[in-house]
């Protein structure tokens, strides 16, 4: 084996932390001064690495560490130990309930109607009445203001109606664009104005003319 091979073996032995060298390596070192010198240098190097690492981690622990941790633990209060999981579980459960509630609200017909009520849309015909999809905002002339329908996709709820009711509704919807005032009245959002108190004045009768009954004269 060449000197290079022996040196590789030396390094492996030192890096692995094994104390003793193999017999053939030890024999070679006895006969090769250069490798002997290399070996000594490597022993010093690995020794320096070890002592450097020890110096790196075995720093004196500050006396303030544990008291400071205790103080912060006292501030933190109850550990999440035995109850941590249950709190986490509770949080997840609450979130799940909220999500389900929101989902149900979105799907309930009432909520759909509420959404529809808030959207000012002019029905342009019976076909439009089936599905209201105001993706293209429609503009309604409402006096001085122009009211635009927001781009919200809303599907009308399916309901069973009588044939005559359906025909009447279609007629109504068909005529609606011509009757602008009615359309505006239908599409204008309800105002939040509160009812004001009504004053009722007392009935005042200035002159009272009392006449005898004709039958009494007879």
């Amino acid at each position: 084996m060449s000197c290079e091979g022996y040196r590789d073996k030396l390094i492996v032995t030192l890096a692995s932390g094994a104390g003793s060298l193999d017999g053939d390596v030890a024999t070679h070192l006895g006969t090769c001064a250069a490798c002997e010198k290399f070996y000594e240098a490597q022993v010093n190097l690995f020794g320096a690495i070890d002592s450097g690492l020890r110096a790196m981690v075995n720093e004196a622990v500050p006396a303030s560490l544990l008291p400071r941790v205790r103080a912060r633990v006292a501030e933190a209060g109850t550990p999440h130990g035995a109850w941590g999981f249950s709190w986490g579980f509770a949080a997840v459960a609450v979130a799940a309930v909220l999500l389900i509630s929101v989902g149900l609200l979105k799907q309930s017909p009432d909520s759909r109607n509420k959404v529809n009520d808030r959207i000012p849309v002019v029905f342009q015909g019976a076909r439009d009445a089936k599905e209201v999809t105001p993706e293209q905002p429609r503009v309604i002339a409402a006096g001085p203001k122009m009211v635009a329908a927001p781009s919200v996709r809303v599907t009308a709820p399916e309901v069973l109606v009588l044939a005559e009711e359906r025909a009447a509704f279609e007629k109504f919807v068909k005529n609606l664009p011509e009757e602008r005032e009615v359309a505006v009245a239908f599409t204008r959002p309800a105002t939040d104005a509160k009812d004001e108190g009504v004053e009722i004045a007392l009935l005042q009768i200035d002159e009272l003319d009392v006449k005898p009954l004709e039958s009494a004269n007879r």
Partner: protein
Amino acid sequence: MRELVLIQPGRTLEGPTAREHERVRADREFEERLTECGPLAFRVAYGVLRNAADAEDVAQEALLKAYRNFGRLREPARFRGWLVRIAFRMALDRWRSVKRREKRETQGEQSEPRAAGPTVEELAVSSEFQARLERAMEELPEKFRLVLLLAAIEGYTLEEVSGMLGIPMGTVKSRLFFARKKLAEKLR
């Protein structure tokens, strides 16, 4: 007024008293772990950061985190391993942010050329060698670095390092071998 608790045969103690007992017991256990493992967390952090104040901050945060998760860390070996890993990770994060800050501050400045010639023996005692060793450590993969640091901490055997990290003894040894060999190559 004294609190009366009804305990029936075959039933466990329930209600706030039981919870209070459990809390006291958990606090006592945590105190034991804190005394045992607090210094270890500091040393791991110090091994990465090389700054006592920063290492103390990191150890504190790691221990507080351990307290918050104490419910699933009550087993001593598990607690120690978890703490070591979290302290190491937090220290690395801190170290990276410190380095970024330093880089910003010293941008444009050129590093001084390294003096050549000292022998290994001289290097061993010099601060320059220590600085080179630290730089070489920073270049090691994290898993090798952690094993190297833990093995260098006084009072912990390789078996204990293996237990802390939850890896086989053979893996600990091979990582140590690789890490030491790499360090020697960089410092030679």
